[in-house]
């Protein structure tokens, strides 16, 4: 079968390279078999900008590359976290996988079958990918009751009324809601309950993949945990594969097996979660981690390394390495040459100095 057509998926040799793999890494490798469920091969998505009529006539169109040349695979049963700031293209990536967008270039495969946009996908493939959006109150029709909302995908798949009812009862139990929620509207529910409803709707048709687009970002701290717990539990019970998009690094760190870091539409680094957090091999990952507010009272913002400048516009991305405009380590080569993927540990990084970045000492020097 397709064994990682793209080189950039995690080291295909598995344990061979990771001679000194920790227990945790072995566990990760164990829970995620090597079979790729979602596969992105050199996928790009660009949007045409609103040019003036004159420009359009003259052919001077500009476009925004929301995602460029992304190759990535998500293995069965694993959680792949995609992190990045706004404008990094992580939501576009989610929309490409679900089929809301069709890629401008490249191929997306689900279970080895190349797929197009949602309108071109056969019903069973649509049923195979569930989506949970950030805000349940906007992703569930405000004029639909909880019961109707959960039933919708089932009805679309042609389930009979009796089967629907049975399945809904089952789903409610799975997401820890009770029967009396069925007649409620989402605006009558709390944020956490509403998100449970949208999870129930997403898993109604027994998909094997769940795309989670910022599933906990709109929730309070005390509720966030319960939704993450729920997501972890149903992943185990239903053997789901997650593509988790989030800017909340601490949440991603908690549930993801592997993490992909995006910046201005490109992948910067991909690697096992623990490794990526402990030994980031890309300066951008470093900076992102440093910026997470710390609950350690001894840390103060004065001592924290703070990345300067802002995310460049994807309409006119920087030459060479897209991060060079903000990178404290940038040298001449970074401005001119696009870095290759360099394998570091079980993952890879797209930095000319990946090896030395992964080596803690030097990096900390660079920051100071």
């Amino acid at each position, binding site marked *: 079968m397709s064994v990682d057509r793209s080189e950039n998926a995690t080291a295909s040799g598995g344990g061979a390279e990771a001679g000194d793999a920790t227990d945790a890494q072995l566990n990760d490798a164990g829970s995620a078999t090597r079979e790729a469920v979602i596969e992105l091969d050199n996928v790009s998505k660009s949007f045409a900008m609103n040019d003036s009529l004159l420009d359009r006539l003259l052919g001077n169109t500009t476009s925004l590359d929301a995602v460029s040349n992304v190759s990535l695979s998500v293995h069965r049963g694993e959680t792949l976290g995609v992190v990045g700031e706004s404008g990094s293209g992580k939501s576009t990536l989610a929309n490409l996988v679900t089929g809301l967008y069709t890629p401008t270039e490249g191929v997306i495969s689900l279970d080895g079958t190349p797929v197009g946009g949602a309108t071109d996908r056969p019903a069973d493939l649509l049923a195979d990918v569930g989506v949970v959006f950030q805000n349940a109150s906007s992703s569930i029709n405000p004029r639909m009751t909880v019961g109707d909302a959960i039933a919708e995908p089932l009805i679309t798949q042609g389930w009979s009324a009796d089967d629907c009812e049975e399945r809904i009862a089952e789903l409610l139990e799975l997401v820890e809601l009770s029967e009396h929620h069925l007649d409620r509207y989402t605006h009558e529910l709390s944020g956490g309950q509403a998100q449970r409803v949208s999870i129930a709707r997403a898993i109604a048709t027994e998909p094997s993949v769940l795309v989670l687009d910022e599933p906990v970002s709109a929730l309070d701290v005390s509720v966030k945990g319960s939704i993450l717990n729920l997501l972890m539990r149903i992943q185990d019970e239903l053997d789901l594969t997650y593509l988790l998009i989030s800017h909340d690094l601490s949440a991603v760190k908690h549930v993801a097996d592997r993490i992909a870091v995006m910046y201005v539409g490109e992948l910067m680094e991909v690697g096992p979660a623990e490794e990526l957090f402990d030994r980031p091999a890309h300066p951008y990952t470093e900076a992102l981690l440093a910026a*997470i507010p710390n609950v350690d009272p001894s840390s103060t913002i004065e001592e924290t390394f703070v990345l300067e400048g802002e995310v460049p516009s994807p309409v006119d991305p920087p030459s060479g390495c897209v991060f060079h405009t903000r990178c404290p380590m940038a040298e001449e080569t970074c401005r001119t040459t696009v870095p290759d993927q360099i394998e570091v540990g079980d993952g890879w990084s797209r930095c000319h100095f990946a090896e030395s970045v992964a080596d803690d000492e030097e990096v900390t020097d660079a920051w100071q």
Partner: protein
Amino acid sequence: MTEPLLSVENLHTHFETHDRTVHAVNGVSFDIEPGEVVGIVGESGSGKSVTARSIMRLEEPGKIVDGSIRYRGEALTEATDETIRRLRGQDMSMVFQDPMTTLNPVFTVSEQIVESLKVHDNPDHQPLREYLRIPFLHDRTDWAEKRDRVVELMSEVGIPNPEERLDAYPHEFSGGMRQRAMLAIALASEPDLLIADEPTTALDVTIQAQILQILSDLRASRDMSVMLITHDIGVVSEVCDRVIVMYGGQVMETGTTEQILTQPRHPYTQALLDCMPQQTERKEQLATIEGQVPNQLGDIEGCPFASRCAYADAACTSASMPVCDCGDGQEAACCALDRVPDPTREAVGVEGSR
């Protein structure tokens, strides 16, 4: 310290919906000393933002029904509109959460900073014609004089190349830049108290870190007090001296940042800290707080957290909570502190993020 800069006592702010009353702020008391950075932490519905707006007297459509707010001894709850306006122009400034909507899109950013400077110079004289761009009628010679001051302010809040950006409109600024511009506008009036209402919530983490760093620098260079409202305990720990934890419109616990983070005494603070994913091993079940935030409709008897509290008993839902002194200025509003474990535990940092 003789007199606190700001003193809020037993503040009650209510909202009338068409047939019910929402008790958004329900008996909040705290002080802010000069030069102090105080963090107010709470989840949505805790009343933290309404408290801030009540201090600025922007509580509409809510109503302050009881309690007092004193700024340098002057009672804001009884002050005339004119006094309030003068205070807003010269002593207190506020920065809001969403930088996308708080700047006026039809004026350049520098014009808006100048406006704030002018209001500060002369709060009672703001001729309308200066704002209308009508030839011959509007005279802006003194606006030009303020140019240097604007450039200074813009660079102070970290807007790069301020000279080139003087004619920029808000839509030409990114979210982080707009929040800096808001900060510049707030600072133009040289406030002694800056109220920042979730200033970084709408921003990316790297930009958030930049803004927090600027706030922290400003506080050092200007000797002003900052009241930082946030839902993120992490943000508080980065910049604040003291923390006020709010829940259900009431203050649950106050203390220094270190006390709150390392030895929280109130069950709610403890539960909130336990909820942070950093406190749990990867892939393990996260700690959560069962139950729901109270809806604050009508009178609330007893402790608002009682229904979700692991240590609650009958006494917690009947009487109002006593404020217990836990030593070294730490206070917790709880009637059952003897039942709640006293954590003299070690600070737990974010592992991995050095």
